[in-house]
């Protein structure tokens, strides 16, 4: 986990004259689960677009380190490819037609890295099978994708991203439309993949407690500010007040964290501006 998989250094992004990300720097280790929290409009999805090289940062650099030093995974063909093949991305909103005439297995195999070859080699089939087993999709591999429940569908999306054998996995609110049980299930599956395959995970969510349970570290983004660190380092009233720039309070009730906006600033306003 000590090796660095991803290094973001002083990245700023301006879009349409508005600064979305400002001087953001952090690192993600191999096999690290990093939770990304923050209000809407803080630039979480923009950050993913920068990491995917879909968007060029106004300032700063992003480096992917595909080759891992030390304990290496078996040298499969995919892991020796260039960095472009090593990021798996599960985007936020995805509409799938309920009548879509495609079985889950076929849907997953769309994600295979070879762009043109439409038949599956034995290695492809193995990759599809292992991605489906890792995400617990194998049970409904022959069902049409449109007929799955929300949680099952999210796992199929995850499998499609995993089949490329990525070293970094970007998940944009994979739990947003799921019921609490399915949210927990999804996060647990991702966590297990992160550990067993030592894939770095960046996981955007609005659920503080879900992230707090699974993430090694948290990146908390607010418009113009950010904080990186372990759950205990970031989820503190003073840090959050600095991030939001207004009076907020972190309340701990029955072992769960709640972020509350308060009328008056607690502990004075000295930490607020930064």
């Amino acid at each position, binding site marked *: 986990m000590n090796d660095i998989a991803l290094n973001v250094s002083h990245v700023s992004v301006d879009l349409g004259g508005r600064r979305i990300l400002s001087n953001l720097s952090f690192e993600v280790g191999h096999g690290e689960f990093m939770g990304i929290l923050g209000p809407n409009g803080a630039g979480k999805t923009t950050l993913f677009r920068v990491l995917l090289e879909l968007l060029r940062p106004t300032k700063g650099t992003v480096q992917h380190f595909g080759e891992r030093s030390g304990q290496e995974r078996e040298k499969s063909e995919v892991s020796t490819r260039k960095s472009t093949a090593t990021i798996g*991305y599960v985007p936020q*909103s*995805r509409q799938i037609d309920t009548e879509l005439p*495609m079985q889950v297995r076929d849907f997953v195999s*769309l994600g295979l890295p070879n762009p043109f070859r*439409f038949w599956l080699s034995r290695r492809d089939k193995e990759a599809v099978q292992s991605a489906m087993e890792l995400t617990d999709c194998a049970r409904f591999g022959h069902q049409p994708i449109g007929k799955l429940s929300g949680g099952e569908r999210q796992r199929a999306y995850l499998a499609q991203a995993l089949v490329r054998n990525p070293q970094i996995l970007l998940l944009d609110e994979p739990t947003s439309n799921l019921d609490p049980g399915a949210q927990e299930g999804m996060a647990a599956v991702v966590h297990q993949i992160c550990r067993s395959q030592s894939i770095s995970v960046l996981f955007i969510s609005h659920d503080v407690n879900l992230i707090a349970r699974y993430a090694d570290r948290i990146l908390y983004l607010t418009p113009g500010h950010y904080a990186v660190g372990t759950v205990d380092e970031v989820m503190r009233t003073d840090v959050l007040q600095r991030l939001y720039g207004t009076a907020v309070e972190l309340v701990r009730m029955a072992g769960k964290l709640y972020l509350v906006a308060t009328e008056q600033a607690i502990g004075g306003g000295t930490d607020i501006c930064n």
Partner: protein
Amino acid sequence: MFQYDFMQHAFAAGTVVAIMCGAIGVFVIARSLSFIAHSFSHIGFSGAAFAVCIGWNPLSGLLLFTSISALAIGGFGVKVFRRDVTISIILSLFLGLGLLFIALSTKQATAMYALLFGSVVGISMSSVWEMLLLSLFVLALLVVLYKPLKFDSFDPVGAQAARLPVRVLSVAFLILLGIASSEAIQIVGSLLVFTLMTAPAATARYLTNTVFRMIMASAFLAVIGVWGGLVLSYYTNAPVTFFIATLECIFYFMALGWHALRERRKARTVEAVTPVWQRA
């Protein structure tokens, strides 16, 4: 029936074009481009009228106009043209232009009729060859682009996430669609391109659950429709296109009915195995 050259030509051309249209139609409906296909056919109509007017082969006019509009639509981005207002304005402009070109040319009525409603019977051997080559070209490209097109058509967000060159794919597909509609116009006419391009694919959607089988089913249904149309027309003297349109429509509603029936039966079995106390 087959002792006549014109019937042989009609069967050959109809079969080739039906296979190609049936196959491409699956992607047309998946990408919700059926109305763009429809506007291509009208643009093609004016292109053909233009060609007739200045004394070219209609096919070259068709291909010229549809390819240019494919590039134009690709340049603006497909989203702008999915808006029905944009499409209706473009449709009317090109129908008007077609009318103008027809009026300017000397062979008015028959050419107009053939372009609007198709002229599969009376097609020459050289046209059959043209259509065969074009269809093979379209089908070959569909095979090469099958995987990325399937990804981008059925899961556009995923395709973008996997960093497929979606823009290039979109323009390439529009050009293929332009060629395909140019051919379909010659069989069923520009007003009825839907009958070969979207109806069989829409039917196939209810019959299978993989994309490849859907393409097979769609091409098969298109071919059956064209053959049936030619045979019925031969014995009744009513227009071929009428029969093709009617047959494809019947296929569609039969498939829809069958699908609904099967869904209902499935729902009933689920109900039967659910214990009484768990029923809502």
